[in-house]
């Protein structure tokens, strides 16, 4: 399985589809979007931070594990860091596979695993960076 995992501090730009696809029959995409209401209050943005090196290796392992259960051909993940305004995507996922069910199952499970285990955090306002206690 081909894996592309990226973090960006700029708005997410969906990468172009890989040209003519060999035996790909399904492309499932997911955008996670920052909602206006977070835990009952209106927010202008969320602030994301990550332990990037670990997040990357965790996500690659998660992809490999899921690929054993739901064989897919290609994964592209872009996760945004820093402030993400309401209405913009904080993450983008694309999964390509031969048959649709694998791509749907992989994509849904990947997002669930990412939320459970990838060292990425969001806070309603910019977190203090290194202030003394």
């Amino acid at each position, binding site marked *: 399985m081909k894996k592309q995992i990226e973090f960006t501090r700029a708005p997410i730009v969906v990468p172009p589809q890989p040209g003519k696809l060999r035996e790909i029959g399904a492309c499932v995409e997911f955008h*996670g979007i920052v909602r206006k209401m977070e835990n009952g209050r209106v927010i202008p943005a969320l602030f*994301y*931070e*990550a*332990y990037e*090196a*670990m*997040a990357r*290796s*965790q996500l690659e392992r998660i992809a490999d594990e899921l690929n054993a259960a739901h064989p897919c051909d290609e994964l592209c993940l872009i*996760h945004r860091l820093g402030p993400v305004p309401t209405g913009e995507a*904080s*993450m983008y996922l694309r999964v390509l596979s031969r048959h649709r069910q694998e791509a749907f199952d992989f994509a849904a499970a990947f*997002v669930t695993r*990412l*939320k*459970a*285990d*990838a*060292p*990425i*955090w*969001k*806070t309603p306002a910019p*977190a*203090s*960076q*290194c*202030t*003394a*206690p």
Partner: protein
Amino acid sequence: MQITVFAFAHTRDQLGFGEKVLTCEAQDTPRAILRRLAPRFDPGKTVRVAVDREYADWDQPIGSASELALIPPVSGG
């Protein structure tokens, strides 16, 4: 040997640093290292620890690891 300790999100706020280099021994556990660094900080049951970018046990010696990270409850996506 030296280890770099990373703190993220609210653990960074609580500890007052995001990254600190520390001298330690192979038989030190993450719990012992943290206690030395911040005697009054209790990771409780929700803060996980990662050793060399893998989730690890608070009471397992760090061996030759070079990175230790405090991982408060994650919320990516």
